[in-house]
């Protein structure tokens, strides 16, 4: 069985960052020449994350991991739907983290670059699960403050 490896996905996506340095990364959220606003960008990534969790890599998770991710992605999804109450950059970071766990293309490439530079991608689910893996804890981790909402 092929194992989805968070850290191998980081290496792979980092290589893609270097190869795509000639690209206009805004094209990731440009549809027929029109750039999406941030809420629409987050919605688009939410849809991809939900899809891969529900119909793809998520089916590979064991019962406990599946439950943990289902919970986290539910909360992430609700936060994206109400994104005016959250910091967009933190939601982008959570999207990047989830996409690395699931093996999806990273579209928030600038956010990903910054997370790499700031060593914010040093722990995967296996390392976080014993410390109460949750959307709230991810939000706190990437924002640096306790989530109040």
């Amino acid at each position: 069985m092929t194992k989805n490896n968070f850290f191998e996905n980081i290496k792979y996506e980092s290589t893609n960052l270097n190869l795509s340095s000639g690209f206009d990364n805004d094209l990731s959220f440009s549809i027929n020449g029109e750039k999406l606003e941030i809420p629409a960008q987050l919605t688009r990534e939410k849809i991809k994350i939900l899809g891969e969790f529900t119909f793809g890599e998520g089916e590979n998770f064991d019962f406990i991991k599946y439950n943990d991710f289902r919970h986290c992605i539910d909360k992430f999804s609700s936060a994206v739907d109400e994104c005016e109450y959250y910091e967009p950059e933190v939601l982008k970071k959570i999207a990047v983290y989830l996409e690395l766990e699931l093996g999806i293309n990273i579209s928030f490439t600038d956010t990903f670059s910054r997370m790499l530079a700031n060593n914010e991608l040093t722990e995967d689910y296996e390392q976080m699960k014993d410390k109460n893996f949750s959307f709230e804890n991810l939000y706190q981790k990437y924002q640096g403050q306790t989530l109040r909402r």
Partner: protein
Amino acid sequence: MKHTKTELHTHLMGMLSAKSFLTLLKSFSNEVYWPLDKPITEDSKKVNIDLLLDNEDVLNMLQIKHGQTVPYDNLEQLYQTRTQLLKFAVQKMENKYGTLEKAERMVYSTYLNACLQELINQKVKYVEISYSLPRIMENVIINDDIAKKIECKFLLSTNRNRSLKKIKESANQLEKVLKKGIAVGFDIMGQELPLADIEKDDSNYSNNSQSFKRKLDILLTTLNQYKNSTLRIHSGETKESFANTEQILTYIDELATFYDLVIPPPEIRIGHGVYFNENDRYLSLLKKYNCIIEINASSNVALNNISSYAWLPYDYYIENDIPIVLSTDGHGLYDTSIPRENRISRTISRNYDKIVTTDQEIFERKAKK
């Protein structure tokens, strides 16, 4: 009255009817967590499954009652509920049998045989089931009495948004199950979004990791080596995606020209094909590659992609010599059946007899290959 005997567009987790799903769970546990349709939290309780069996509200946590409509998010919740319940059963069996492999074999074999029996009851004789895990496909055992009545093959599903790295891994996995005769091809799925400009950018093809054409490249060149393979693409399901199918067929055409491929193989099937650019180019591409359209009437209404069965383009395709098949997209989840999909098409299409004839030809070509 004659009706079709193939089911070419269904998803493993969506197959078993809601009540049978709950009954099946009783084979593994008397109790289940509650609420059924939410992730387990500290506030979750346990409830006896017998108390749930005849409760309509509970059944609707596992299905979209026929005639009702839900947003796409609800579909994902239903799939997640079904998936999580089977994982719950696997965990119970792992505690009993000691290994994950034995537990998965027991649970998924029981589940699959129940699904196939329901299809047999619908007079289906050939099914291609979409699923994402090769290890389950290789591990399940179909009972002899079931195998005599229905032929079952898998399509390895892969989400359209997966990275190229994951798509390559899927292609390697597929080759193993193709060689064993367990699977017959790929299913590209996931909620359709209009392609982003970067996904369509060919200016730096070999360095563009988000190129949708590169993903098709990997899948198509793998399948072209296997004589009776299938590539199914979910496309044209929503109004927003009307341009997708023609774009995807254009990519296939470009790849076939570049690599000098004769297609089929693979057989190209378009899952849904409800929304499209109505023009000669679309039809000519469908004909060039002998594409087949899979019409899933109940699914299209359930997800509010069409407001009436009258919208379904059965006759547009048939009268332009494009073959179509009738399928359910998951008969349990959509509370439908192959006979029901036949009844719907019979009331809408002028060409129902042609649909049945085409289905018979496809069945004879595919069965016992």
